[in-house]
């Protein structure tokens, strides 16, 4: 009797289990593993720490479950150099068996590991801006929901020429690829709309003092600066110290006046214009949640580095949902990521182009003092901006990648 009863009980349980099977299976499937390549030591750590905070904020909001799949994050510190990035990519892929990589931070890091990612066929959601990874040598395993180097400065070039009516501009940017690409994009659009870039200045990345460069700015009616990290602070302070603030307007790229830097700036930043893909005053539901959570947990105003990783997290969630939790097929996962079209993200609605780069809004902002605090106030939104701006993609990639000398500046003085 007892035996029979047990058998019946077991059978009953089995039936119950099989009915509940789909959800049980999904909750018990191996966790989805995310490898975050970030920088926690050295000079680039500022952005790297923000990246980690952004992803942590998203996962906390979701209780570490994305579309029914439990998520594990493996955080790897690349040290902010190409060799470290390559090593850590290998580590998270081969040892930790991650399903996807988020990051890295810097363009030269991305360039160091793009071939490895291609060879291992691991989907990667990039924050780094290196243009050609989604242009002339498109990596099919990369999507970039942030922006290429030139994507925002195309917009700044357009705005500077058409709305600010600037005629003669000096550009100043660190002497490395991210700077070259930003300035190239600015110059192209600005000059096609009637402006002239009369001076291009390239301070080395770790110049202690920008005064010798600012001294050469000369006779212009505007400045475009593409500084990153802590350099915008040094630049704007020296600019104000030399009495140029308020006389010659400053425009900048997305790193130059990132919202996360606002607490470090003083009055010298007031009036500076910037073009960016993320602005903390953006009015979407997810952005309000994100800004509130970042303020609560870390006491910061989030900038594009942390927002970029929050958005990357949203991409992962949407792709898992699309595949109904079945993420083992890497090709399918990559296709799902590329086909995403999200509406409620901190940067607004966006989708991806055929190369895996984002098509989304870019915001023009002016830095102002409101109630004692500095804010970047959005004054114009350019909708659905592509990495190719308004150019034909096929024509665009036939030309050389933006560099120190391309497009050629014909109006230098």
């Amino acid at each position, binding site marked *: 009797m007892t035996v029979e009863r047990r058998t019946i009980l077991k059978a009953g349980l089995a039936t119950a289990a099989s009915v509940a099977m789909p959800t049980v299976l999904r909750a018990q499937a191996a966790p989805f593993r995310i490898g975050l390549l970030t920088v*926690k*030591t*050295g*000079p680039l*750590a*500022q*952005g*790297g*720490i*923000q990246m980690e905070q952004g992803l942590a904020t998203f996962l906390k909001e979701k209780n570490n479950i994305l579309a029914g799949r439990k998520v594990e994050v493996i955080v790897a510190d690349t040290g902010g150099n190409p060799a470290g990035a390559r090593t850590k990519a290998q580590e998270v892929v081969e040892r930790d068996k991650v399903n996807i990589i988020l990051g890295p931070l810097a363009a030269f890091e991305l360039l160091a590991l793009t071939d490895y990612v291609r060879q291992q066929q691991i989907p990667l959601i990039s924050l780094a801006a290196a243009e050609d990874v989604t242009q002339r040598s498109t990596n099919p395993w990369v999507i970039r929901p942030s922006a290429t180097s030139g994507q925002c400065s195309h917009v700044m070039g357009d705005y500077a020429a058409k709305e600010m009516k600037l005629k003669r501009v000096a550009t100043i940017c660190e002497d490395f690829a991210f700077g070259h690409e930003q300035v190239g994009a600015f110059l192209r659009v600005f000059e096609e709309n009637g402006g002239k870039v009369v001076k291009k*200045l*390239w*301070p*080395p990345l*770790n*110049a*202690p*003092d920008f*005064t*010798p*460069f600012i*001294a*050469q700015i*000369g006779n212009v009616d505007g400045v475009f600066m593409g500084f990153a*990290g*802590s350099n915008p*602070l*040094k630049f704007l*302070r*020296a600019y104000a*110290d*030399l*009495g140029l603030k308020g006389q010659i307007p400053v425009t900048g790229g997305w790193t130059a006046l990132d919202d*996360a*830097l606002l*607490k*470090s*700036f*003083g009055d010298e930043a007031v009036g500076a214009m910037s073009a960016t893909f993320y602005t903390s005053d953006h009015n979407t539901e997810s952005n309000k949640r994100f800004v509130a959570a970042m303020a609560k947990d870390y006491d*910061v105003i989030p900038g594009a580095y942390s927002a970029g990783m929050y958005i990357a997290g949203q991409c992962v969630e949407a792709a898992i949902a699309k595949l109904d939790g079945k993420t083992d097929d890497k090709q399918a996962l990559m296709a799902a990521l590329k086909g995403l079209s999200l509406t409620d993200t901190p940067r607004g609605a966006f989708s991806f182009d055929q190369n895996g780069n984002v098509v989304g809004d870019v915001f023009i902002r002016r830095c102002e003092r409101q109630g004692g605090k500095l804010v970047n106030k959005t004054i114009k939104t350019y909708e659905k901006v592509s990495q190719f701006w308004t150019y034909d993609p096929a024509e665009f990639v036939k030309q050389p990648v933006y560099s120190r000398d391309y497009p050629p500046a014909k109006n230098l003085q």
Partner: protein
Amino acid sequence: MAVWSLLAVNSLSLGGLLFLLSAGFSLIFGLMRIPNLMHGSFFMLGAYLGASLLQRGYNFWFAALAASAAMVVIGGLVERLLLRRLAGQELAQVLLTLGLSFVIADLCLMIWTGDPIQPATPAQLGGGVRTLGMFFPIYRLAIIGIAVAIALGLWVLIDWTRLGAMIRAGVDDAPMARVMGIQVSRLFTAVFCIGAALAAFAGVMGSPFLSVYPGLDADMLPLALIVVILGGAGSLLGALVGSFIIGLLYNFGQAMFPDLAYVILFLPMVLVLILRPQGLLGRVQT
């Protein structure tokens, strides 16, 4: 014209800051033969401490002096507890100071996070002067004055006091100084503390226009190295001359040959190393 006068004044200003940074480095290297690779860390740590005090509303000069005092303590501890044990082992000293500089960099990252801090220019030195067709910030001029004052103070200390005489004796010939009854080991501590304090003071002075950020240490250390190699280790006048040469080369080099900025900065160092390895004003070691 205005550009050139602006660059000239700015050269002196940067030179002044470099002197504050490298005077201590030069003394430490000259006396103790320690290539102190933590010197940039002293600069950065001082700048961070100063910035924290300024954020709490303390007076700028108090912040600068307090940061220097803190670095006297830290420098003293490092010298007494660690470097002392490695006397005469240059490789070990290089590794120790390099290692400590990484430790300090990561501690700073933990304490102050990665966000850059840029303290305001002290109110009484804000604004600028308009002259010779240019506009120049008063604060930068003040740095020149302070550097000159400190150079004079150090000169009096080294050339006119008993302590200075002992330091000079130690630089020239440490074993002989020891034989003469000078407690060279105490001198070492004193000089190391002075050097660390000067670096911290320079850090606070520089923070309103350099800003304070992770990596500041690595940006400043090579500049101190070039200055000392140019001027000659152990020579204060050498550090002063070297600082102003580097200030001039940096400013005019960046303006005239921006593509060769670093070549211009390091080329004189290479020439000096080839033609006059002891530095412009250094003495040949016997």
